[in-house]
């Protein structure tokens, strides 16, 4: 047993034991007008350098949770604390990415990337960040594309640029709302591996919302399974596959066991 636990620690990412970055305590959300309880006393701790996912059926409150975590919507009750400071609205240390890249076609790639800086600190500050933006383009494999307009980027490339835009403010936490689900299967697998590389390189603390069980398992240290009405976590599943993960691990029996366990939870929810 002792041996096992040591072995477990060795394969587990060091971050699992890292310092808490984002803490949610007893977060509930009720939409009074529609009389819907979207979230029921959700507790969540994201530790530094870890990748967590949340998976659940449509309408289980995932997007509500994400909006609260992004500071876009207040909870009905509960505490939301990022880096020791309560979240009361949008903050520059929260990075966010959506299903659509949402690049603006009248701005070049680099101008899109420094947009968050331009909005918060003005044009001069944005210009000063161009060097850093170029380094980020390098990191995501878009070197040389800084002066290209988004209409010339493919879907995958656009999402890479969106990653840069998310990282330019050096956020403490990355909130990812099904970022690659609009891409084709092959690009999606590839971009997921790229995402892992980028997160590992930057020791990022990430939180992913997804509908894909394999995607959640291959990327995450912890997968939270959520049940609907009211939304609450039914299980937090630790993924003990070693880092860096590869797509080949999807044929690992441990991977299959985890996928099966999560699917069981979701199926139960579906037939309630």
């Amino acid at each position, binding site marked *: 047993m002792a041996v096992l636990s040591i072995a477990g620690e060795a394969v587990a990412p060091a971050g699992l034991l890292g310092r808490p970055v984002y803490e949610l305590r007893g977060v509930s959300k009720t939409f009074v007008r529609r009389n819907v309880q979207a979230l029921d006393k959700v507790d969540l701790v994201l530790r530094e350098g870890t990748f967590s996912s949340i998976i659940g059926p449509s309408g289980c409150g995932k997007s509500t949770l994400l909006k609260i975590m*992004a*500071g*876009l919507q207040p909870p009905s009750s509960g505490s939301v604390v990022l880096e020791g400071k309560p979240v009361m*609205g*949008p*903050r*520059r240390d*929260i990075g*966010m990415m*959506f*299903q*659509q890249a*949402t690049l*603006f*076609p*009248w701005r070049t790639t680099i101008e899109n990337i420094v*947009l*968050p800086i*331009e*909005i*918060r600190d003005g044009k001069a500050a944005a210009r000063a960040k161009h060097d850093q933006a170029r380094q980020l383009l390098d990191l995501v494999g878009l070197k040389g594309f800084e002066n290209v*307009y988004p*209409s010339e980027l493919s879907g995958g490339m656009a999402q890479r640029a969106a990653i840069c835009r998310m990282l330019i403010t050096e956020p403490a936490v990355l909130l990812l709302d099904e970022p690659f689900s609009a891409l084709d299967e092959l690009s999606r697998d590839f971009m997921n591996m790229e995402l892992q590389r980028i997160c590992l390189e930057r020791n990022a603390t990430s939180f992913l919302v997804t509908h894909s069980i394999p995607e959640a398992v291959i990327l995450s240290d912890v997968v939270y399974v959520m049940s609907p009405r009211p939304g609450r976590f039914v299980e937090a599943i630790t993924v003990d596959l070693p880092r860096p993960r590869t797509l080949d691990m999807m044929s690992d029996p441990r991977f299959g066991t985890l996928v099966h366990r999560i699917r069981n939870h979701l199926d139960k929810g579906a037939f309630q």
Partner: protein
Amino acid sequence: MTQAQVVASAIPEQTIWKEHVSWIDRVPRWVSMLALLIAFLIVWQIVYFVELVSPIILPSPLETIEDLFVVGKNLLTGDYMLAALWITTQEVALGFLIAVVLGFGLGVLVGETAFGERAVMPYLVAINTMPKVAFAPLFVSWLGFGIASKVALAAFIAFFPVIVGTAAGLHAADQNARMLFKTMGASRWQTLVQLKLPIGMPHFFSGLKNAAVLVVVGAVVGEFLGGGKGFGELIRVAAAQLNTPRVFSLIIYLSLLGLATFWIVAWAQRRFVFWHKESVTEETLAQ
């Protein structure tokens, strides 16, 4: 070796399936346009020749073309017709400017604020349903027989499409883009200037194109009903004298003014909305 050749020669003629494009879809554009124009002139000439209508009210195409040269010469030598055209051009330009400024301002009010959408828009719609030409006598009595009353009518007739275009443009930003701006902590003003206005540009410009056409209508109708010294007045006088070739050729030159206004807007659109595919293609010019 020549397996490919063998296969090729082995294809039986009756199995070949080929795309068929009808000749009418293959004619080059300039040929068909020229053919249509000539056909139109021939029909016109025949109608004139067999006196289907009285020659007093319908001139022959030849007479009209002849008069086109007369008017053209008058315009080029800077005679009284050029002065008239200049007056009408001023009315169109000023009317357009006022329509754009007023329409844009009201469009932002209507598209951006709940007050504008709920309280102002119903009144604007009500005004738009009025026959605006009927206001011409009012404008004349308020502003006199000079250029001002024509400018007012031109702007009045043209400003509504600009409002609609601007307001529609402000609603064009999708949910994701708005949410992104919120996460960046953008103020309402920043969201308007950096997101909603740029994204709404194509809508704004289609409003401008409608206005560009309407503003010429407004200026000429203003001249018909309120006198003055513009091109509309020349047309009115020529018509009163039953000088129909002159009426036709004046109308043709007047349409050049409308085209010029439209082309300036189209050029601006290609220049400023370069990122919007439909704005850059030829299609929008023939809208």
